[in-house]
């Protein structure tokens, strides 16, 4: 009775099946018996559900090494050896294909690794400072009443200290100032002088926020005394060699005064980078800035705030408007503008500053767009190589068909075959990886030139390099191997063994799709590089509105050089081969020194227009061939006397347009600025010229004649082309006589202007190289396929020829297919390229929109390249003797 009752209840069938699926055969009887007994007891004592669940649990708990059925194969190494051997054999049999695969993948991996190094370097900025995520830079947005907005990464000097005093959220604050007018700063020691590009005056708290490592000196006290200076390791070595630099005296000649500074520290050189890295930092900024109490202007101070650990950024930000209202409202209103303060996280400064003014940035800015571009290019090239692998492997699959058939017959599971082919592709990628390592080693110096960096493999990035290398290799191997492995392992064993002439290839659509994709990428890159070159060419040849030929710029870096300018000018004028000499506070292509908002005296300050102010010496317009539209030129020295009111001024066309003045009415008009009693009278108008690079629209400029040479920052000399070297040597000698304490420097004006496009050229070079690589890889793939397809159709071609087909007809037949695919690729690629290039061109205020012909040219190039690639094999096939091809079986 009892037994019968039990018969209705059986343990869960699925669980039993699971048990049998893994359990060792010799254990099945006893284990099933034990579990059944347990199950029945559970049923007796409680619910069926509980008993069934318990049964499941018991089954799962039998998954233990001792109970699991052992795999039949005791020694798998024979099998692996066999896999290796067949893999190597098939590579040797198809050397062309193996070469294309390995070489293509190696290029792809090498590109990825190089770009990964670049990206890691770009992302590493500032991250080595302790608490970097609590440090922010103060930003300023100025909205003038006439609608112009200026976003600055700087602020007024008084704001930082006030915030530190009033906001409990802040832990510390420091400020940094650099001499805005001088791209280089001179430092002198014992009659030797050194021009350094990065020199900052900082608050005494600087090393508290930014804990640089010191070789000599104490970071806590280094900047406490005014008149202290901390040098970089390189600069200390340059000046003192291996001797200690501590407590030595150096002189910094600036325009204001010449300061003698005591060296209180030397900073250790580090691989970790910051936008604040400099050649030297000197103290005393608190004292320098103390008298400046404006809340509205004087936005030249880089201010860094450190928050307390628990403080919230949003809360702090919400207090800014009230602070600005309290202290600066009146002043700002008087200037006709609104000033908004903001914060920028320290770690974002290097890559995410594009929205802020770039004129005076500390350090060299990177660009997040550039980082994305690099990542995209690396992945694209690798993808193209992986596509080659997929296409060639599946196309050649029929060669392996018999092997698959035999393996399946002998008992290989599909999973075994998938593992075999995946393993093969990973093996090929690993081979490619070793070649890639060699490629990286060889090309790193060139790559550094390309991206303007100093990357090298060392302790700081070795771990990252190895990790990324392995990750890239394995991912590529698995992705590239997945489809071929699935495809090849799906062959039907009976069919492939029985049918001798069975042609197995991957589906035509997929292969064509992949080729179309490759060529879309190629055409995007080709047209991209054409547009970039076109624009750069335009930028460099566009008439700038002034004459740059045979002009030499001599920077006047020190007060000595500036004050001695007049004397030096007279000496230089007399040198044979010198045509004219002039000077300016701000030659074209140099950063502006000052700007102010002017308005016509019959209007109100609310209508003021921001102008760059440039002080010039005589002959300036004449020597640069800047054309005058109205009025007259300055008369020296009468117009340049200091203290004359109204002061004579010349403006450019853009200034008149912005202020709404007609050129014919301009002469005699009076301009005012702020509440100053000074008045400027327009005596002439010059035509617009490109003072700044073509990235920027032409801005209003006001020129003032200056008899006082201390305002000048650069001197310009027009020399004869003939014997120019000789003339320059004479100028150099004259300089050393008149200005012995300042090093002589010279730069051609045309070079300085061309340097404004250095970053564009560097991008162009990167795109050019990646385009060539992408096209090379695509063509390798296409070539491989054309070899394969020509081989496959060799008999067909033979028969066609026997039947009377001409070589031309056969060529047409063979190439038509590729051309169709390439045409589809062009149809997809060109619109994308057009869109992308329009985006890039937005960076330029002056651009020459690429005509359609550029894209037609790109398409033509693409077709030509693909045609040349397939033509060789096609021609070979078409010319082959039909007798040999038909006879061979």
């Amino acid at each position, binding site marked *: 009775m009892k037994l019968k009752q039990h018969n209705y209840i059986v343990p869960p069938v699925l669980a039993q099946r699971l048990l049998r699926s893994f359990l060792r055969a010799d254990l099945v*009887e006893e*284990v*099933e*018996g*034990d579990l059944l007994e*347990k199950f029945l007891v559970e049923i007796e004592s409680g619910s069926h559900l509980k008993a069934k669940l318990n049964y499941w649990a018991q089954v799962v708990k039998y998954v233990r090494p001792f*109970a699991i059925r052992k795999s039949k194969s005791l020694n798998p190494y024979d099998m692996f050896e066999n896999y290796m051997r067949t893999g190597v054999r098939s590579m040797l049999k198809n050397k062309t294909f193996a070469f294309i695969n390995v070489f293509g993948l190696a290029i792809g991996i090498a590109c990825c690794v190089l770009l990964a190094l670049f990206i890691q370097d770009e992302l590493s900025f500032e991250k080595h400072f302790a608490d970097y995520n609590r440090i922010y830079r103060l930003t300023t947005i100025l909205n003038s009443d006439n609608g112009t907005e200026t976003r600055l990464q700087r602020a007024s000097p008084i704001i930082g200290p006030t915030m530190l005093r009033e906001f409990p959220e802040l832990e510390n604050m420091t400020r940094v100032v650099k001499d805005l007018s001088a791209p280089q700063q001179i430092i002198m020691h014992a009659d030797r002088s050194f021009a350094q590009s990065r020199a900052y005056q900082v608050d005494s708290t600087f090393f508290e926020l930014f804990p640089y490592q010191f070789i000599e000196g104490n970071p806590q006290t280094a900047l406490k005394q005014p008149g202290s200076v901390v040098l970089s390791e390189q600069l200390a070595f340059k000046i003192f060699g291996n001797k200690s630099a501590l407590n030595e005296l150096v002189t910094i000649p600036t325009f204001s005064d010449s300061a003698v500074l005591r060296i209180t520290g030397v900073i250790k050189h580090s691989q970790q980078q910051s936008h604040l890295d400099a050649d030297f930092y000197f103290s005393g900024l608190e004292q320098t800035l103390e008298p400046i109490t404006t809340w509205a202007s004087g936005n030249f101070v880089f201010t860094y705030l450190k928050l307390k650990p628990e403080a919230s950024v949003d809360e702090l930000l919400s207090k800014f408007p009230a602070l600005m209202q309290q202290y600066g409202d009146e002043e700002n209103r008087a200037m006709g503008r609104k000033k908004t303060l903001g914060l920028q996280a320290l770690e974002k400064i290097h890559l995410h500053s594009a929205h802020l003014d770039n004129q005076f940035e500390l350090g060299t800015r990177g660009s997040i767009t550039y980082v994305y571009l690099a990542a995209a290019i690396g992945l694209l090239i690798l993808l193209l190589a992986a596509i080659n692998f997929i296409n060639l492997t599946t196309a050649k699959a029929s060669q392996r068909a018999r092997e698959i058939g035999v393996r399946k017959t002998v008992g290989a599971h599909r999973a075994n075959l998938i593992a075999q082919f995946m393993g093969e592709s990973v093996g090929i990628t690993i081979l490619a990886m070793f070649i890639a390592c060699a490629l990286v080693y060889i090309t790193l110096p060139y790559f550094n030139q390309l991206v303007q960096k100093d990357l090298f493999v060392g302790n700081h990035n070795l771990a990252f390099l190895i990790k990324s290398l392995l990750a890239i290799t394995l991912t590529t191997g698995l992705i590239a191997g997945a489809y071929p492995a699935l495809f090849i392992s799906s062959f039907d064993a009976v069919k492939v063994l029985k049918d001798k002439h069975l042609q197995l290839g991957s589906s035509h659509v997929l292969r064509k799709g992949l080729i179309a994709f490759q060529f879309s990428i190629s055409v995007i890159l080709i047209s991209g590089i054409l547009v970039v070159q076109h624009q750069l060419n335009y930028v460099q040849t566009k008439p700038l509105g002034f004459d740059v030929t045979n002009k030499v710029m001599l920077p006047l870096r020190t007060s000595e050089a500036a004050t001695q300018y007049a004397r030096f000018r007279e000496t230089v004028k007399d040198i044979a081969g010198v045509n004219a000499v002039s000077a300016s506070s701000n030659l074209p292509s140099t950063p502006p020194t000052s700007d102010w908002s002017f308005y016509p005296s019959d209007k109100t300050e609310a209508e003021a227009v921001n102008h760059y102010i440039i002080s010039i010496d005589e002959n300036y317009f004449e020597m640069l061939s800047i054309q005058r539209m109205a009025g007259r030129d300055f008369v020296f020295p009468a117009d340049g006397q200091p203290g004359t009111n109204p002061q004579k001024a010349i403006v450019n066309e853009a200034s008149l347009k912005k202020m709404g003045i007609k050129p014919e009415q301009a002469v005699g008009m009076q301009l005012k600025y702020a509440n100053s009693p000074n008045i400027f009278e327009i005596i002439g108008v010059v035509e617009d010229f490109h003072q700044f690079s073509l990235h920027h629209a032409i801005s209003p400029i006001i020129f003032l004649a200056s008899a006082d040479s201390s305002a000048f920052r650069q001197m310009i000399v027009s020399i004869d082309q003939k014997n120019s070297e000789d003339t320059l040597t004479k100028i150099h000698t004259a300089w050393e006589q008149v200005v012995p304490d300042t090093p002589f420097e010279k730069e051609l004006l045309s070079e300085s202007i061309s340097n404004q496009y250095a970053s564009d050229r560097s991008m162009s070079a990167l795109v050019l190289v990646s385009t060539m690589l992408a096209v090379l890889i695509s063509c390798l793939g296409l070539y491989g396929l054309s070899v394969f397809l020509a081989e496959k159709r060799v008999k067909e071609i033979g028969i066609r020829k026997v039947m009377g087909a001409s070589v031309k007809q056969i060529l047409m037949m063979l190439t038509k297919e590729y051309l169709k695919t390439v045409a589809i690729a062009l149809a997809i690629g060109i619109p994308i390229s057009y869109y992308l290039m329009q985006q890039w061109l937005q960076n330029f205020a002056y651009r020459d929109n690429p005509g359609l012909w550029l894209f037609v040219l790109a398409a033509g190039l693409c077709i030509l390249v693909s045609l040349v690639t397939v033509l060789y094999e096609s021609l070979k096939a078409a010319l082959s003797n039909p007798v040999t091809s038909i006879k061979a079986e």
Partner: protein
Amino acid sequence: MFYNLVTNMIETRLGEFEEVILLLVGILGEGAYAYRIAEEFKSQTGRTVSIGATHSTLDRLETKGFLKSEMGSATAERGGRRKRIFTITALGKRVLKESRDFKVSLWEQYPAFKVNFN
């Protein structure tokens, strides 16, 4: 000492759980099979253990040479399936005894319990 008796590399020390299982096999005598041992373990210690875990330990003890086993006779409760009956070997008994002696010797050296222990 007995370590030398076992020539192969199999681990011969006795874990706590292993020792209990070994003792239970001894206690249960003719009725020592995996399910029964698991039940006995539960009733003796109050801790539940899966049949799989018990079986795994029995298997390990057998490999170490402390147990031997053979298939018993069929019974109706188990759908006619036979049981695997485990019995302690001479080596197993010796290991148990050594383990006890070792512990007793430790207890005797423990001053706080020395008096109570006798």
